[in-house]
Structure formats: structure tokens, C-alpha cells
């Protein structure tokens, strides 16, 4: 399976600032996704990161708050903008490696103070 890395692994940010999370895969993959896991909750899909075009967002998530880039088939970024304490979560990227199996990156733990 693909090896996925995420940076940073954790961060503490001030309210009102932004955090950009990077997801790097060691091979080209067709589909990449971003998920959020709020404390004590399960994973919720934020968006599908599309290579060369705008991301496809799930209901309740908007581009202004969660801009996503995917410049090539091995890399994507998720920015969480205008941070509030409610954004404190684990953010995970995943890739499809042999549809429809998905493998997850190690995650980024964000705490907003």
C-alpha cells in the first residue's frame, strides 16, 4: 500500500489564524481525501482533492474555510482558515489504493486556543 506522510503531526494555533496541513504520498494516486475527526467523534469527510481542479466539498464544508490544493498526483494541502476552538480536531488525508480501499495518513492534531 502507499506510504502517506502528513506535516505537521500536531500544532497549537491561536484563534483567528490559519493552519496549512501537507499530505505527501510516495506514489501517484488518483484520489485523495481529507477528513476531520472532532474529539470523541468519528471521521467526517471534508472534501475530495481533485488534481488540477477545484476540490469537491461535502455538505457543511466550504472552500473559504477549508481551501484545498492538489498540484499533482502525490501531494495535497488542506488549510483550515480563521481558526476557532471548534476547529480543534484531528485532520487526516487518505488515498485510494486499489479502489475502493482507502489508506490514511498519520493525521494532524490541531488545538486552537
Amino acid at each position, binding site marked *: 500500500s502507499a506510504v502517506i506522510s502528513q506535516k505537521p503531526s500536531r500544532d497549537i494555533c491561536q484563534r483567528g489564524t490559519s493552519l496549512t496541513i501537507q499530505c505527501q504520498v510516495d506514489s501517484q494516486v488518483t484520489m485523495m481525501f481529507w477528513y476531520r475527526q472532532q474529539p470523541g467523534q468519528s471521521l467526517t469527510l471534508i472534501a475530495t482533492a481533485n488534481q488540477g481542479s477545484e476540490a469537491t466539498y461535502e455538505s457543511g464544508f466550504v472552500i473559504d474555510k477549508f481551501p484545498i490544493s492538489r498540484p499533482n498526483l502525490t501531494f495535497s494541502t488542506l488549510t483550515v482558515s480563521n481558526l476557532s476552538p471548534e476547529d480543534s480536531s484531528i485532520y487526516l488525508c487518505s488515498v485510494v489504493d486499489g479502489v*475502493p480501499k482507502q489508506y490514511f495518513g498519520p493525521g494532524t492534531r490541531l488545538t486552537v486556543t
Partner: protein
Amino acid sequence: EDKVVQSPLSLVVHEGDTVTLNCSYEVTNFRSLLWYKQEKKAPTFLFMLTSSGIEKKSGRLSSILDKKELSSILNITATQTGDSAIYLCAVVLGGGADGLTFGKGTHLIIQP
């Protein structure tokens, strides 16, 4: 609205016991069901199940999908403390949307 329900939400057993975790789903355009184990941050893939009904096995873990009942079970035999984790069930929808819809998970604790 697509829904994935796991039960129980938490379970405490003793080492050596056998456990059965449940996952039921009500979704449009079902494609497959996946089980994951989450210990810290990243869920690790366990099994993928389809409507074929074929049981999947890996060591002490096994899983099967009942397409008539729209449900799946995950069995763990001879449990060990290292099995303590959150077990997540997720459904893949068809129609080109490959994002996963997750249940809330079962928090399994194995006591020595």
C-alpha cells in the same frame, strides 16, 4: 440520508474472550464496507467486504457482510490487550463518490 450505525459503542472484556462488533447501514447505492482499527490517530485498514458475502479472515480477526440484513460483523477471537482500540466501520458509496461514510465506532477495551 446515508447512515452507518455501530454497536456497541463501547465494550470491556477480559483477555482471551471472543468479541463480536456490529455495523449496520442504510445507504443509497452501496458499493462496499470497510473495517478499520484506530489506536492513536490514523485508522489502519482491516477488511473490505462486498455484497458477495465472502468472509474475510486475518489471524484472529474475521468479518462478513450480510447483504440481506444490510449489516456486517467483525469477530475477534482470543482477544489480547493489543486489540484495545476503536474499531470503525465505513461504507463506500457508488456513483463515483468514493469518500467514506463512517459509523461512530466501537471502543473496545481488553483487560488483562
